[in-house]
């Protein structure tokens, strides 16, 4: 049986590691997804248009009952985005979590606020300043999601 001297074996292992390291490209985050980019942008526009209209309305047009469909549509769209990004694997965990926050934290709170305003006696529209702050925060979340998605292009 042929054996190699200890020093020669160490050199061979070092070269093998260097060669292996030189051949691989590390991927810690998933690739850019055009569908996510497009769908998040479209949803942000829908939300922006709807909340702009809401801010201009007076009772009873501004009350929750007249906007129930909006919340259903938003939840449905975010659900679809979440499912797509979960299916894209662990490298996409940040985007999946962001979508979940937007859905179950931010829009859930906005819907609750809308219901509360309508439940007052007499029913009132949501506070205009409060709604403006909510819109700003929701826009920040949309931008955060898009910023990360675009960064996944990696300069490409």
């Amino acid at each position: 049986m042929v054996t190699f001297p200890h020093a020669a074996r160490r050199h061979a292992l070092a070269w093998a590691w260097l060669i292996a390291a030189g051949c691989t490209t590390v991927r810690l985050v998933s690739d850019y997804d055009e569908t996510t980019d497009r769908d998040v942008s479209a949803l942000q526009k829908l939300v922006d248009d709807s909340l702009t209209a809401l801010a201009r309305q007076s009772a009873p047009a501004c009350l929750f009952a007249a906007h129930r469909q909006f919340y259903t549509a938003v939840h449905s769209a975010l659900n679809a985005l979440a499912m797509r990004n979960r299916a894209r694997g662990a490298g996409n965990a940040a985007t999946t979590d962001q979508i979940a926050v937007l859905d179950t934290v931010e829009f859930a709170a906005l819907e609750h606020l809308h219901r509360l305003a309508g439940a007052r006696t007499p029913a009132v529209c949501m506070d205009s300043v409060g709604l403006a702050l909510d819109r700003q925060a929701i826009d920040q979340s949309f931008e955060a999601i898009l910023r990360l998605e675009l960064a996944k292009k990696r300069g490409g």
Partner: protein
Amino acid sequence: MLSAALAVLEKKTPVIRAYAEGEFKKIAQAIVTIEALAAAGRITPEEAALHMQIQRGASRTVLMTAKGLGVLDAEAAINAALDAVRTAVNAALPFKLV
């Protein structure tokens, strides 16, 4: 190898910091306004808590993006270091191996 990685990180970290700082400044101002609305009686304590929940949500998504950008930068730094190894391996040999 190390200098290739550090060059990437030094270039990109200030961008992430500037983004996060700008976003958190807006959120901090929003929180002050919510407190003022509650103090003025324009919104109830329950409503104030819900507005705060939305601001906290935005904080979380911004932080997740900052973290994600950091991971992408770490990835770029690692790959820059691996590229340097590839160059060194090919330079050390009389033929192009990788």
